[in-house]
């Protein structure tokens, strides 16, 4: 009971720290003029970028506190912290310097190395109905590629206010439930920490956003999701819960056929009218991203888009939870 109370206090404290840090970074970057235009607002307001730096900082601090008071094992603390730091560095370099499109997918592979070095993985990959494979060699490759894919796919869906933070909270909740269903009671502290930390940021990032997440924190969230899926061995349900992320990035890549920054494409995918409705730009050469797909039949306001994407994440999470139940069934 005491341990549970401590965990609850830590989680609430992590939300408040993230709130304070987000406000601090928001004010700092606004003062420094590091702002971006909120493109889906009729009055194109300027919003501070990179305020999501509060997320990796809070995660590392509270993972450390968790380790100090023996809630998590040191190997989990070190591997998760190194994943966060390495991906943060990769993202910050991309945020402040003009890196080529191939840089992020390749550099994010570094994030898989701490998990391999500290052995916080299991080579047994499980699927529904008791199907499983022992893949000692392939799994190492899957860790490296999986972290990079997850980091970049989350970053690519940062298209409307609060989408990434809301979607990732849904994915973390699904992951926590899946771990509980598949493995029974287990220590869910790092997963719950993900939810509570992002909740603090979401307060400022929700529609209409007062701060933007930034590339580096979005990459960190994606890498953190993949790392936890590997550590807790719930890869299958996690991938299912990330279907909208996958749909968005895959449709982008399948059309563009190369790794390139969205802003460098110079293609209009969607456009905003004077009433604040987002339309499909109807340009044949543009990728059918998730946003374009959703507004292709009827124009939507930004908050309708956020709501539609949220519903899709809730739906894919239901499929993920069913998958977790099916993983316990052998035919």
């Amino acid at each position, binding site marked *: 009971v005491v341990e549970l109370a401590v965990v609850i206090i830590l989680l609430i404290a992590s939300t408040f720290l993230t709130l304070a840090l987000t406000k601090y970074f928001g004010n700092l970057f606004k003062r420094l003029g590091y702002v971006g235009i909120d493109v889906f607002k009729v009055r194109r307001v300027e919003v501070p970028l990179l305020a999501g730096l509060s997320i990796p900082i809070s995660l590392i601090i509270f993972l450390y506190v968790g380790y100090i008071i023996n809630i998590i094992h040191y190997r989990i603390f070190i591997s998760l912290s190194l994943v966060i730091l390495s991906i943060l560095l990769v993202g910050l370099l991309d945020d402040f310097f003009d890196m080529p499109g191939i840089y992020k997918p390749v550099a994010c592979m570094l994030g898989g190395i701490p998990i391999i070095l500290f052995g916080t993985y299991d080579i047994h990959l499980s699927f529904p109905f008791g199907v499983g494979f022992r*893949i000692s060699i392939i799994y190492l490759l899957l860790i490296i590629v999986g972290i990079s894919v997850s980091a970049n796919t989350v970053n690519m869906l940062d298209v409307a206010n609060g989408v990434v933070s809301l979607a990732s909270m849904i994915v973390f909740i699904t992951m926590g439930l899946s771990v509980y269903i598949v493995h029974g009671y287990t220590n869910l502290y790092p997963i719950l920490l993900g939810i509570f930390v992002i909740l603090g940021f979401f307060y400022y990032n929700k529609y209409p956003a007062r701060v933007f997440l930034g590339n580096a924190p979005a990459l960190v969230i994606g890498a953190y999701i993949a790392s936890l899926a590997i550590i807790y061995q719930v890869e299958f349900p996690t991938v299912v819960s990330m*279907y909208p992320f996958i749909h968005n990035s895959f449709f982008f890549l*399948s059309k563009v056929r190369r790794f390139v920054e969205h802003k460098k494409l110079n293609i209009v995918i969607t456009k905003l009218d004077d009433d604040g409705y987002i339309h*499909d730009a109807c340009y044949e050469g543009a990728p059918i991203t998730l946003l374009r797909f*959703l*507004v292709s039949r*009827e124009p939507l306001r930004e908050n309708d888009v956020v709501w*539609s994407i949220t519903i899709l994440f809730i*739906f894919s999470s239901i499929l993920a939870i069913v*998958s977790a139940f099916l993983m316990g069934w052998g035919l």
Partner: protein
Amino acid sequence: MRISKMAIFLALIFIFQWVIMIVIPYILFGVFSRIVFIDNVFMDQLLKAIIAFVLVSVWLLEWMYMGIYVYRKFRICK
């Protein structure tokens, strides 16, 4: 707040992809438990990786064509 009608079609695509995603490991498992027996660990995993890669590629391609078909069928701009 409104939900996009296209979200409903997308949800149906997700169900379809999910069912196939459950079937793919079954095919792989069936091939390796009934047809192919390899003693060498490296060769066994290499073959598994190649077959899995082909199946996942087919899964993604089919997702892409289904998404493009639905998009073109229901979009306003023709």
